[in-house]
């Protein structure tokens, strides 16, 4: 796994590079657009973390240039929300994901992992993990063969978990995916829904809940 980190801030760069290397991601750190360009010419990367505000230009311009050259590497945009008009602006230019500053390292890692596995497209109509089964066509849900009734939102949430088993899903990822919300909802809506889903999918003899919370980051369907 090889990451290109394009970030002009020395402290963030150092921290992220070190953190990524601790989880054994080979990381090349470029401080300017020029350096990023050179790094791209020298080697292949699995994923690029791209800061928008660079001393020698806008990161989005860099991205546009890469996409024009039909570069397919996944790109995660890193910026303060108000630096670009809309999250969508970044995604329209061909970014695969978007993370706003100030971010948590756990969130960054979770998103990087989703990105690198995103390519494996899941076209199955039935998803199953640990005895929980959903049918995407009939929208039926069952736990160990017993049917369970879910609301639309609960179904969408469960589908998101089942599409990303054993992976940490952050609260912002969930609220963006399920509610299409790009603002702080000022509520613990995600936690409430996860709790609801846990309640509906509980086995009587099981001590550990189905969706484990990951401190300060989000949840994981282990």
């Amino acid at each position, binding site marked *: 796994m090889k990451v290109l980190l394009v970030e002009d801030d020395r*402290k*963030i760069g150092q921290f992220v590079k070190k953190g990524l290397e601790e989880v054994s991601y080979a990381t090349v750190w470029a401080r300017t657009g020029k350096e990023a360009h050179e790094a791209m010419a020298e080697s292949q990367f699995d994923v690029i973390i791209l800061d*928008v505000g660079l001393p020698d230009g806008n990161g989005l311009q860099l991205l546009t240039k890469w996409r024009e050259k039909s570069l397919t590497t996944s790109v995660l945009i890193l910026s303060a929300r*108000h630096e670009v008009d809309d999250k969508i602006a970044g995604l329209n230019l061909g970014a695969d994901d978007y993370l706003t*500053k100030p971010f948590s*390292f756990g969130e960054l890692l979770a998103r990087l992992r989703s990105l690198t596995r995103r390519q494996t497209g899941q076209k199955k109509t039935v998803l199953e993990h640990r005895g929980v089964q959903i049918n995407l066509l009939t929208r039926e849900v069952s736990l160990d063969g017993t049917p369970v009734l879910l609301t639309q939102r609960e179904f969408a949430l469960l589908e998101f978990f089942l599409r990303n088993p054993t992976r940490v899903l952050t609260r912002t990822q969930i609220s963006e995916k399920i509610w299409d919300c790009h*603002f702080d909802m000022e*509520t613990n809506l995600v936690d409430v829904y996860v*709790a609801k889903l846990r309640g509906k999918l509980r086995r009587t003899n099981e001590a550990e809940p189905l969706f484990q919370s990951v401190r300060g980051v989000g949840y994981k369907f282990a």
Partner: protein
Amino acid sequence: MIPLRASHVVFYAAVVTLTVTVAVACGFWFIRQQVLTGNDFLLDAESKEILARVAQITPPVAAGKLEAALREHTEVDEALFYFQVHNPAGKVLFRSPNLGAGVLTDLTGGPDKRTLSLPSLGLLRIAEYHPPMVDVQIAMSLRNFQSVNDRFIYVFLLGVPLIAVLSIGFGMALRKSTLKPVRLMQATARRISANNLGERIDVPPGGDDMTALARLLNEMIERLEKSFNHAKRFTADVSHELMTPLSVIRLHTEKLLNDPDLPVKYHHSVEEQLQATLHLSQTLERLLTLAKADSSALPLKLETHSTTDFMGQFAEDAQLLAESRGLHVVLLQNDGSLATFDQGCVRQVLFNLLSNALRFSPPKGTITIFSKRIDGEWTVEVWDEGQGVPPNRLNDIFERFVQITPRSEPGSGAGLGLAICKSLVELHRGRISAHNRIGRSGLVVVYSMPLNTQIA
């Protein structure tokens, strides 16, 4: 003058019609005068011959003598003239045969030449001469002139309305072609919003008023663009310069918290530090949203949705959130309608209002949400059962950094939530207000926005 408005066109047509009418009437009057003058000249010429013959008669003048003197001459000229001679007492002494049954009117006492219409002879120009002893009258038929006159009036009566219609039509066409550049300007001006301030109005060729107007508008749009860009750049710069160091603080604080070597006695402090960092970035985020909304640099993504579906979805989330705190949410809405709005923005307003209502509700309280369509507006009311707000502070709560409750209360924001609601509602050309419930404690926040928000 260039006619612009429809009333100008009517005015223009009236002026054109009136001018044409007066010009034609004057022309007609002039021709009539010419004809009469010509006739009078002929009558005078003829009278000299007649009077000469009358003068040769030896008095007393009698019918027989007149007959002998005038008969031959009047027969020669009967195609053109009528003759009649009477004595001062009014007794007719001689009449030319072409008069038939007609009798020329005695003009004694009035002007010597008159235009009269007689039953059997039609329109006549009659002249009366006064040699000694008798009055001689000579008349010419104006029948030809009369028929031209009648035809003229007929054409004239048909022509005036036609001219009026034509001049209205021409005025409209002129108006349309004159206003075309204005219409183009309107279309462009309407299209220009925060999203496409780079656009400019096409400056029509030529150095007329339209060109000047287009230039003026373009200059105005340019000034707007500059101030928008300034606001955008400011928020972008502030975001970058403040969020980057905040990231560093957050990253390190979280790392400390996850470090098993962190002494337990520091745990609480580091946790507090992390919370404060998050609170700071949230407040900053909101301030930047407000700054953008203030300068209209916050682009709205306007789409048409069913308010029933939208509110239904929101109510589902609201009910769950309320249940998790032992509260209830009830949604009441009248017949659903389609409305044009930015879903993300309106959802943010609703969640802000809901989170306030949840925070201030007493245990087991009920939050009631009304969604209704009134007079082309979509109105939403959020009723809670909390303490309400002192009446003199009801308007303050939408101001920035205003808080009615103590700041230390857990979960309280920085006092920007309602200010953001106000900005977002106003971006939709709507309004927001609050009042206390009557008969029991509780606050009602009401916002309304047009069903069809159009951003100029």
